[in-house]
């Protein structure tokens, strides 16, 4: 294929932006029919997808990093100069394709899922804006510009979670999501300040080369990396900033699939990957990334076991999988992390769409009210199972290959992390098949009349199902990882079948299989009563069911008791009683003293005359005494 003209790179984010502007500003004034709005954004995204693929093919062929210069956005002579430019390397190109593809499929899916909903204009507009910002985020060659897109992505997430703003939980979840990710952004911004202060530039490649040449080093780098990672923790919902993601499920399901499963939450992983040359110079930062990742993977996996809302299960699963990616990053491999991001994007988006499809037909997300949906919804069931197998890491699904790489890497580098990861993998298989069996197995509950969703929803799901199976094969020869810098090429036969020769692969398959079997035993066959288990492990169950009380800790104690009605209330009282009180007191003092002093003004002119004469005498005396 011909190499793509450089200027065309700009068109990739420009198209969704144009769609956004058109939807928001032109649809109503031009009286365009509102059912066309989805097609506007789908067309734009499709074109972007086309250009992204073209770009990726180019990159695969040439394997070079291109810097596309832009324009000066803000400059102040001798003090600051912010150049907007694009960086196009393999990392970017892969992300572009993932984002545009998922966005495209999700929008098509939305046509069916959101059909009949009000203000679809706003919905598609913000999806377009989100796509634009996400594309900008992965292409930016400048930390500050990246941060800008980072924030805009968060804003779109806020808007879309709160799409049904008239539902109080949705509105609250939107606020929570924006606020908690902003705590992470606090760290990111601090890191940017630190980096700018140390290097005087925002340009990512310049920062990398300065770090390589040792201009910034030591604690500066560690702090900068920790700051950046804090940003990543916020966006990628890593412990302890994870609480917003489950709540974000209040948003429309396609939004969850796009933003809260495949793309935006993976932006944290991307960010660490992008800034990896900095992390390389700080052992402490890398260890932190790995440890946080492992804790999150395990911790979210346990919570997912106890959730009854299918979307919540998927949300905690996402958190857990993002933890896996962080482990990979912390262990030193960007390539593996991005590989897992790549496969995860497909199967998790698929799972969310499946959940959406189920909801579309039953009107609920509560798995206790579902059951037996396999028969009435065959396509949904089949694709959901494929996604689940992929998530659980069963050969030959995509998830197997990427997860295997992570486990292998942990096994080679850090036994403790490996143990944590393998437990998390077991939990993954258990909770996802718990969801599968609760939803699709058993009997249909009588009050529902479930039916298969329309083609417009099934087709994107089927496409994703294909990808959930096949995405792993992109690395069959090690090519995917090689593209991202890891060099272990081998033949495709080895890539697909040879891995099974490794004992670790069998171990992990065994673990995953036992997870699935356990789920089958409990939720399908009911050999073991789930109630009994809950009672047996009562203590553990309570903890998990209450999500370790972290939400309560944050909202009730930290947020409300300590800060809002504690410290801030104190400030407020201080302000009105002490600061303003002092002012009022000074005024009152004046008023009161003048109440006394005004008695002097008795209205008798003679008294005034005398006072006047006293003054004259005093002045005269003064003059005399001075002379």
């Amino acid at each position, binding site marked *: 294929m011909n190499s793509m003209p450089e200027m065309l790179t700009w068109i990739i984010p420009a198209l969704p932006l144009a769609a956004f502007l058109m939807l928001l500003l032109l649809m109503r004034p031009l009286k365009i029919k509102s059912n066309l709005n989805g097609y506007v954004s789908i067309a734009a995204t499709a074109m972007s997808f086309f250009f992204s693929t073209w770009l990726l093919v180019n990159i695969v062929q040439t394997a070079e990093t291109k810097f596309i210069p832009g324009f000066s956005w803000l400059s102040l002579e001798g003090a600051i100069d912010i150049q907007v430019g694009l960086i196009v390397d393999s990392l970017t190109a892969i992300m572009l394709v993932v984002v545009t593809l998922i966005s495209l499929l999700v929008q098509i899916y939305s046509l069916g899922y959101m059909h009949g909903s009000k203000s679809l204009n706003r919905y598609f507009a913000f999806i377009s804006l989100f796509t634009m910002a996400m594309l900008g985020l992965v292409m930016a060659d400048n930390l500050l510009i990246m941060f800008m897109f980072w924030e805009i992505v968060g804003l779109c997430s806020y808007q879309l979670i709160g799409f049904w703003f008239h539902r109080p939980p949705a509105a609250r979840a939107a606020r929570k999501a924006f606020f908690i990710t902003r705590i992470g952004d606090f760290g990111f911004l601090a890191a940017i300040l630190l980096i700018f202060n140390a290097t005087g530039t925002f340009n990512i490649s310049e920062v990398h080369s300065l770090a390589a040449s040792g201009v910034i080093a030591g604690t500066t780098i560690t702090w900068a990396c920790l700051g950046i990672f804090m940003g990543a923790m916020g966006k990628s919902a890593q412990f302890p900033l994870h609480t917003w993601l489950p709540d974000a499920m209040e948003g429309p399901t396609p939004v969850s699939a796009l933003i809260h499963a495949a793309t935006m939450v993976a932006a944290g992983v991307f960010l660490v990957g992008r800034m990896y040359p900095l992390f390389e110079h700080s052992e402490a930062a890398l260890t932190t990334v790995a440890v946080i990742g492992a804790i999150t993977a395990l911790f979210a996996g346990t919570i997912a076991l106890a959730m009854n809302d299918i979307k919540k299960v998927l949300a905690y699963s996402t958190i857990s999988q993002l933890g896996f990616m962080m482990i990979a990053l912390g262990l030193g491999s960007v390539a593996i992390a991005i590989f897992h991001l790549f496969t995860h994007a497909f199967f998790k988006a698929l799972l969310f769409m499946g959940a959406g499809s189920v909801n579309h037909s039953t009107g609920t997300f509560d798995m206790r009210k579902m059951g037996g949906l396999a028969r009435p919804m065959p396509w949904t069931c089949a694709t959901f199972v494929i996604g689940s197998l992929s998530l659980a890491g069963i050969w030959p699904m995509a998830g197997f290959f990427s997860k295997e790489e992570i486990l292998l890497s942990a096994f080679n580098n850090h036994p403790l992390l490996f143990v944590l990861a393998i437990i998390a993998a077991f939990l993954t298989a258990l909770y996802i098949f718990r969801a599968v069996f609760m939803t699709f197995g058993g009997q249909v509950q009588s009050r529902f009349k479930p039916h298969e969703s329309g083609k417009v929803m099934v087709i994107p799901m089927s496409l994703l199902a294909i990808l959930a199976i096949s995405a792993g094969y992109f690395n069959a020869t090690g090519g995917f990882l090689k593209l991202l810098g890891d060099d272990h090429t081998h033949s495709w036969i080895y890539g697909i079948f040879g891995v099974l020769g490794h004992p670790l692969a069998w171990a992990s398959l065994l673990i995953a299989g036992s997870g699935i079997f356990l789920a089958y035993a409990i939720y399908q066959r009911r050999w073991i009563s789930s109630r009994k288990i809950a009672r047996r492990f009562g203590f553990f169950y309570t903890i998990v069911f209450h999500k370790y009380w972290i939400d309560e800790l944050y909202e009730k104690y930290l947020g409300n008791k300590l800060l809002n009605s504690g410290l801030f209330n104190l400030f407020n009282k201080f302000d009105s009683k002490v600061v303003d009180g002092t002012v009022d007191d000074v005024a009152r003092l004046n008023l009161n003293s003048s109440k006394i002093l005004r008695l002097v003004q008795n209205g*008798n002119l*003679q*008294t005034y005359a*005398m006072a006047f*004469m*006293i003054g*004259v*005498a005093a002045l*005269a*005396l003064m003059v*005399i005494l001075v002379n």
Partner: protein
Amino acid sequence: MGLQIAFWVLALIAVGSSAGVILQKNLFRAALLLVVCFLASAGIFVTLSADFLAAVQVIINVGAVAILIIMSIMLTREVTRGSPSNRLGAPAFVISALIVFILVFSILTTAWPISGAEPAQPTTSVLAQILIGDPGFILIIQMSAILLLSTIIGAIVLMKEK
């Protein structure tokens, strides 16, 4: 010598009569003592060879002002109440004494640029020159006229029965 005697006598009368004004309980008598004071001051003007002014003093102050005051005393029928004092007596006395002291002190300690020239006699033409002559106070004279006019109008307005 005669001048000296005249001054001291007149000074004594002036001070005495004005002290009388304050001490006198009877309003009517106080007004009469004011006339005495005016007359004494006219005499003092004579000792200062200010003949015109002495005449003016007698005509205006004694002839008009004092009469006006006496008439108003009669109109207000305040004679019966006497001339009571308020409670500011003691501090007013101290202040007045202090002011006398300060004035006397500064009068005595100042070196006055006394001119030895003989005073102009008679003063009328010189005064006329200075009041309405060329480099003179003609503007102020005219403004005095306005002042008096407005005084008349003001007094009439104030006194008009509503």
